[in-house]
């Protein structure tokens, strides 16, 4: 297969066609502004729905059949249960039983719990996945075994792709901890409560058919209705819709590693010295162990200075909730709950606010909240001397993580990546990242255990931090130190075969992932 490649604005060679659809190469931050009208689902008429409002059908299988499940359709699911999702695997088992082929799975994220789906990828039920490719699925795709090309998008990019019609969802299946038979649903109540259902919002609004699956059916009205029944075609009651205990994954616990604690402390010290922690400031700290402990250090500084944050952007977790309850934070604007304390707080505390990728991440919104956040803490597998960063592949070229909200958060005012200088003798700060997920112009500060590098574009921060006792170095110095300690690794040996595209928040292609030759 010959593929037409062009060089995009960050110098990467990307295809102009992916899975038979045309693709736009990345043109620079904020450069691509499509025109026209937002994609819309088919017109529905309420006359076509039961007068008594009861949309219950007897099983997920029946609902999928009535939704018209057939070859080549795009099926979406959501990751509110993170590694405790059970519905996606069930859907594709049913599809296989029905002999349906060539489906596209469009999850908001995939987890190791989805390993069983490899069977349907192998037997032709699923053609390809457009969503995060990590764990066992990442390994499968890295080996070039998926028939179609993967497309990796951020949470905001997923919303954009739906609105642009880049992805047309035929059937959205929403696993809901509580719902009524009209289809109103929420994530805060019921024995499987997972917090919120923000990642399913776009799907409920734009998919042709919407199925709500619940294990806690309540009489109308289900309040609050995070998902509105007016978008929903069918409701299915099952024994268990997800495993909330498995929402907590390894990445949502505070680190005990002295190295990571050291990096977290340096990050907090930097923020304090740079004057970023002031009354009324805002921050987002992600799900990684280092990010969580940075939140703890922020708390110490805020207590000492007697100041409050106006808001924190979630993923929420126990630690953020404690800060909210202590009054250190006025609001949590939450995109997803990372543990059971987050779920409880969202249910009980009106200051803990449920958001969707539309509010703070969406490229086609009339503004978004991400740009209002003072301090954004993110991770990366690699950062290069131009501050470009990678989150989706390992240095050996294999797919490792999804993008999540990472790209969207880069629009914050001060974007900080606290990362080790090397992992397992593999330099994290390097000459050129394996895959560009975020352009260096949006990344401001790199904090490692051996030094802090400020992006030279941030002349203001460079000036403020002059004379600081913190170990401020250039990114080049950090790279050289990493190589002095680890040695210089050889580059992975890539074939021409593209296994996945990496999209930017506006839907353009910022990079691709190629298959690694053995």
């Amino acid at each position, binding site marked *: 297969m010959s593929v037409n490649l062009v060089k995009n604005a960050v110098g990467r060679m990307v295809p102009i066609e992916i899975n038979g659809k045309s693709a736009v190469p990345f043109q620079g931050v904020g450069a691509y502004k499509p025109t026209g009208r937002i994609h819309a689902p088919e017109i529905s008429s309420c006359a076509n729905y039961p007068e008594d409002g009861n949309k219950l059908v007897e099983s997920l299988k029946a609902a999928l059949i009535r939704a018209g499940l057939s070859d080549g359709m795009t099926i979406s699911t959501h990751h509110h249960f993170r590694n405790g999702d059970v519905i996606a695997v069930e859907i594709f088992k049913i599809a296989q039983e029905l002999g349906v082929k060539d489906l596209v799975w469009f999850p908001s994220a995939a987890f190791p719990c989805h390993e069983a789906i490899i069977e349907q990828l192998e037997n032709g039920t699923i053609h390809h996945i457009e969503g995060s490719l990590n764990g066992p699925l990442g390994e499968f795709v890295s080996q070039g075994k998926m028939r179609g090309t993967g497309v990796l998008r951020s949470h905001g990019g997923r919303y954009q792709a739906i609105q642009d019609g880049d992805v047309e969802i035929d059937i959205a299946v929403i696993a809901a901890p509580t719902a009524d038979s009209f289809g109103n649903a929420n994530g805060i109540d019921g024995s499987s409560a997972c917090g919120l259902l923000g990642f399913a919002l776009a799907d409920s609004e734009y998919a042709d058919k919407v199925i709500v699956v619940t294990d806690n059916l309540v009489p109308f009205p289900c309040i609050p209705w995070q998902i509105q029944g007016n978008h929903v075609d069918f409701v299915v009651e099952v024994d268990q819709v997800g495993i909330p205990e498995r929402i907590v994954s390894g990445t949502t616990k505070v680190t005990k590693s002295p190295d990571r604690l*050291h990096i977290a402390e340096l990050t907090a010290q930097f923020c304090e010295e740079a004057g970023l922690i002031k009354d009324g400031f805002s921050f987002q700290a992600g799900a990684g162990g280092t990010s969580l402990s940075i939140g703890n250090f922020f708390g110490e500084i805020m207590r000492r200075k007697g100041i409050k944050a106006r808001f924190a952007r979630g993923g929420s977790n126990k630690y953020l909730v404690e800060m909210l309850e202590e009054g250190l934070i006025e609001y949590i604007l939450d995109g997803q709950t990372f543990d059971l304390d987050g779920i409880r707080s969202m249910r009980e505390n009106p200051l803990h606010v449920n958001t969707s990728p539309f509010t703070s991440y969406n490229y086609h919104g009339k503004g978004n909240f991400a740009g209002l956040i003072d301090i954004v803490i993110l991770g990366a597998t690699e950062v290069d001397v131009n501050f470009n960063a990678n989150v989706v592949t390992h*240095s050996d070229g294999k797919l490792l993580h999804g993008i999540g909200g990472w790209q969207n958060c880069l629009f914050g005012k001060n974007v900080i990546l606290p990362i080790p200088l090397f992992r397992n003798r593999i330099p994290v700060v390097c000459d050129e990242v394996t895959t560009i997920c975020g352009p260096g112009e949006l990344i401001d500060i790199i904090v490692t255990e051996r030094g802090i590098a400020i992006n030279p574009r941030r002349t203001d921060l460079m000036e403020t931090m002059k004379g600081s006792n913190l170990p401020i170095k250039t990114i080049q110095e950090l790279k050289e130190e990493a190589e002095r300690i680890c040695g210089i690794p*050889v580059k992975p040996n890539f074939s021409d075969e593209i296994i996945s595209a990496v999209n930017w928040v506006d839907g353009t292609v910022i990079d691709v992932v190629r298959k690694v030759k053995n």
Partner: protein
Amino acid sequence: MSQKTTAGNRGKGAASDCYVEFELTSAGGIHLELNSKVKSLFGAKIESLCLQILHFFDISNTHISVEDNGALDHVIAARVEAAIKKQFKTDKQFLPDMLPQNQTGTARDKKRRSRLYLPGNTPKLALNAGVYGADGIILDLEDSVAPDKKFEAAILVRNTLRAIDFYGAERMVRINQGDKGLDDLDYIIPHFVNLILVPKCENGEQLQVISSKIKQIQKKHHMSHSVHLMPILESAKGVLKAFEIAAAEHVVALAIGLEDYTADLGVQRTEEGTESLFARCQLVNAATAAGIQAIDSVFSDVSDMALLAKVVAKSKTLGFTGMGCIHPRQIKVVHENYAPDKTEIETAKRIVNAFYLATEKGLGVVSLGSKMIDPPVVIRAQTTIDMAIDVGMLKQNWRDEYVG
């Protein structure tokens, strides 16, 4: 075919380490099997290092397997060398390059508030040990290394002294007790160790034996840098000989090990520490009389920073100037609580300022008001100032704003 020998660690918790299995064969050349987490990125480099080592030891027929978990070259080299040397005796040593910054000595009266203990056979912990700002880092060959791992640990510690940058922390090694400890010296003295911790020291003679062995090794290697000694008193006998020990040649600090000391007395180690008050006071007094530093025992609850702070504050009032750390998080707490308080800093500022004024005026005698200030008092005041600057209580350029 020879018996198989092994070195190193594998499995969970053995990050940055590798496990080597080695046997000699009579024919068939070199069979090298490498399994590595980083094989696609560093595999060729690791294989060529292994072949270089085999060649160095004149081995041409062998089965060797290396199970690597992201180890750096100096670790892989130490493991391969240890596995080979368990097979046959040789005086040859495969030495990694010596970092230029590791070829430095340290001053006799260097600050020794904190010294971070690292198990000598766990390479992962040594990697970043220097970034936490401890005054000293101890590569331990004694209690933290299992008896059957002592041999390979000595080789690893040797390589670590050469190849790891501790960013200015004093490079210390705790040797084993008795003759084993004397053997340890062969592995560390030629590689610019700064200070030797001598466990369970009970008299000055033990230290003489160590000092003369050090001299002998240094002579052989044409080296002359100073190697300091820090004996640890861990028994009733040791405590009774505190001054003899403190006054021995090359001793710069005297430490106490309270776990062993209380066991020797047959008493419980308590939070208040009444049972060891005599020993600690005796140690401080002996150290002061000998003009060296008094160093306190480690605090073993790594999760209780509030209690550690209290313990350090009390230790300071007894006259100790430093303490061992068993977790990096303890270092900052130790530094902050041995730091001088505000009154001490103000006094020190007056003395140091008077010294500068006297020097500027070309006066040989420093005086403060009507009082003459002796040189040792000035030195101690300067140390107080340095410590205050180090923990952020005083600016480097404090004299610019000082108005007396």
